[in-house]
């Protein structure tokens, strides 16, 4: 058990370090902007607002939040203090709605969409990659180029194709939003059915873009494992091929968990862009609107929340990996 504990402690410490770094980055980036950041931030939004009083108010509230007249350390503590209270500032474009409130409304949609989609894509990709490595021949020769091609289609491209084909041309599924327009969110069959119908296209587009890369990775990993010495030895000990294939795929799959942890950041990025194609009410659409409207507090807040989400996912995957792969325990001894 000692090996595991050491591993977990390491991972927890690492989680907090990355979290801290993300917060510092979020704090520092606007301050690195040339000139007076507050003026810059407010000027970008001000282009669309005609009420000078409102602009003045925004400017002042933001100046107070930034506290630029104080030393940087103190600014940072104010910033962290606000964060710890869940205060991410007020949105410019939906003034005076708090940023935390807007993000809070979008977050469940994003999690409910991306978590299952990325997991399903990962699983399907791994199964296909493993099959390609095991069957080889024609299956491998046709599947791999398809996977490479699918891996090349950008996230939004896949989303647009699905939308145009299944949403517009065939008209099977709705093309925008998280539920039917005009419906008020409440617990009823009609509302749930509407949510499920709207869920399909964004879900499958994220699944499809995740499959390609995973399948290619799993294929290489499986081929590597299939050539491992233990495969030959197990065969000569009379063990059935099917059982050996079981060994191989378990071993190839385990590093894919770490692979997922390392690539989840990129996958979330793609999924966010896919979200906005469907105007899905998640963080992707939120950040797009914030960018279009120059709503800096909302951009910054959403970016921070996305980062924290990814860091948490990586941490959880690392912990799971520690449990399921005995090799982790062994490496902790050196």
């Amino acid at each position, binding site marked *: 058990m000692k090996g595991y504990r050491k591993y977990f402690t390491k991972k927890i410490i690492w989680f907090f370090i990355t979290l801290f770094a993300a917060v510092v980055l979020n704090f520092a980036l606007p301050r690195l902007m040339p000139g007076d950041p507050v003026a810059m931030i407010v000027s970008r939004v001000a282009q669309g607002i005609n009420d000078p009083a409102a602009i003045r108010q925004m400017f002042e509230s933001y100046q107070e939040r930034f506290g630029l007249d104080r030393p940087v350390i103190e600014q940072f503590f104010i910033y962290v203090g606000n964060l710890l209270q869940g205060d991410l500032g007020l949105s410019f474009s939906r003034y005076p709605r708090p940023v935390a409130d807007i993000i809070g409304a979008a977050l469940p949609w994003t999690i409910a969409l991306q978590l299952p989609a990325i997991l399903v894509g990962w699983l399907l990709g791994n199964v296909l990659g493993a099959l390609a490595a095991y069957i080889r021949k024609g299956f*491998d020769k046709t599947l791999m180029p398809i996977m490479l091609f699918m891996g090349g289609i950008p996230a939004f491209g896949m989303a647009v194709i699905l939308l145009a084909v299944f949403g517009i041309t065939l008209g099977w599924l709705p093309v925008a939003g998280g539920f039917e327009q005009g419906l008020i969110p409440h617990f009823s069959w009609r509302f749930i059915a509407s949510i499920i119908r709207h869920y399909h296209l964004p879900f499958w587009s994220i699944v499809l873009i995740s499959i390609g890369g995973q399948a290619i990775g799993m294929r290489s990993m499986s081929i590597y494992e299939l050539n491992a010495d233990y495969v030959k030895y197990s065969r000569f000990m009379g063990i059935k091929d099917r059982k050996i294939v079981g060994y191989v795929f378990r071993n190839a799959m385990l590093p894919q968990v770490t692979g997922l942890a390392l690539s989840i950041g990129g996958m979330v*990025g793609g999924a966010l862009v896919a979200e906005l194609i469907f105007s899905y009410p998640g963080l992707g659409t939120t*950040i797009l609107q914030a960018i279009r409207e120059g709503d800096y507090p909302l951009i910054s807040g959403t970016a921070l929340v996305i980062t924290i989400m990814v860091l948490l996912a990586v941490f959880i995957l690392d912990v799971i990996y520690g449990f399921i792969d005995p090799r982790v325990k062994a490496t902790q001894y050196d």
Partner: protein
Amino acid sequence: MKNTFKQIFRTANFLIGFIIISIVLLFITIYPIFNPGNPLRMIGQDSFTPPGTYFSLYDSLDVSHVYTFRLEGADDNRIYAKLSDTDREHIKEWLLLFNDYDDIFEIRAEDIDLEDTEGLLGLWWEHFDPEVRFDNMTIAERRVFARLDVNMDRLFDFYDKEVWMYNPESGESEYLKSVGTLDYVNVSDVANVRILPLGTDNFGRDTLKQLVSAIGTSLMIGLIAGLIATGLGLLLGLIAGYIGGIVDDFIMFFTNLFTVIPGIVLLILISYSIGQEHRGATTVALVIGLTSWVWTTRAVRAQVMSLRNRDHVNLSKLSGHSMPKIVVKDILPYIASYVVMAFILQVSSGILAEAGLSMLGLGPATTESATLGLMMNWALRYNAHLSGAWWAYYPVILVIALISFALNMINTGLDRVFNPQLRG
């Protein structure tokens, strides 16, 4: 070395990728020669003009030679084109209403083929009766059908059409010429003809021309981003792997950090901070390159660490060679193939990253030149996908996918040569 090249070119994957990329490059070099000019010029007043050949209606009237053709089915085609989709829907509507009204007449909705012009007209003349009054029908609705009946007769008017010209001096119109149903002009005689293989985009710009220039810009962005990312990754990986110790710890700390912090977030924050007005294609490429070096660093470091203690490197060290010399002579050649592959991957992911950024409205400044991402962004912002203007986005997606597919194929081809274990 020569042998390796031979082997690479014998790999099917590499060849496929290489050919695709070559064709793309050839196309984007040759096309502008035949169709020069600014790709961002708005040539059309309408948005999303469908692909096709356009010729000036005005100029076609001035064509000196008019030919007479008796083409088979010309009248049918004319009638087919004249009977609009709404007219067809109305005919169907009337027939169904009549079906409910009349006990003897029976027709089902699925038996009415909207494409079958002859059948529709036949049914209409056989069953339309202006005297019939349906229940619950407003006068306005009844008038629609009456008007339709009049229109239907007009389908068969094949009179000559007269063209009159307005004379600004006398203030009167003068008879110019008459055009008969059998008159044809040769398109090559018409002064102004424009072929738009991919129609125009939302701003009325030639989509194909724009696409060609966008491919060039996107490839350049990919190349710059790839060069920066690979160069930085190689440098950091070499330093971390070769020197080791605290330098390694330091570099790896940042590498691990930026591996888990999602790249898109950094891209968004930095691009937004730069501001629209300062964001040229080069700047965007720079930002992408600066945020995507981690993978190369990791891999280069791992390889250098395994090389560091090989015999030939130790021998060089014992012979007193300087560190730069050892790195160049004893380490770089061994990781060169890997670095080339990493670079190709970075180029393709750079192109994808630009597209993603542009989709979010954080792409290069829009006035300079088009990029694949910007084209995609415009198409979607103006709802090309909802209005069926496929030419504005499918070609772009296809090109992005094709380029990154080709680069990936080149990569797997190289991989098979350099890592024989993966051979099929």
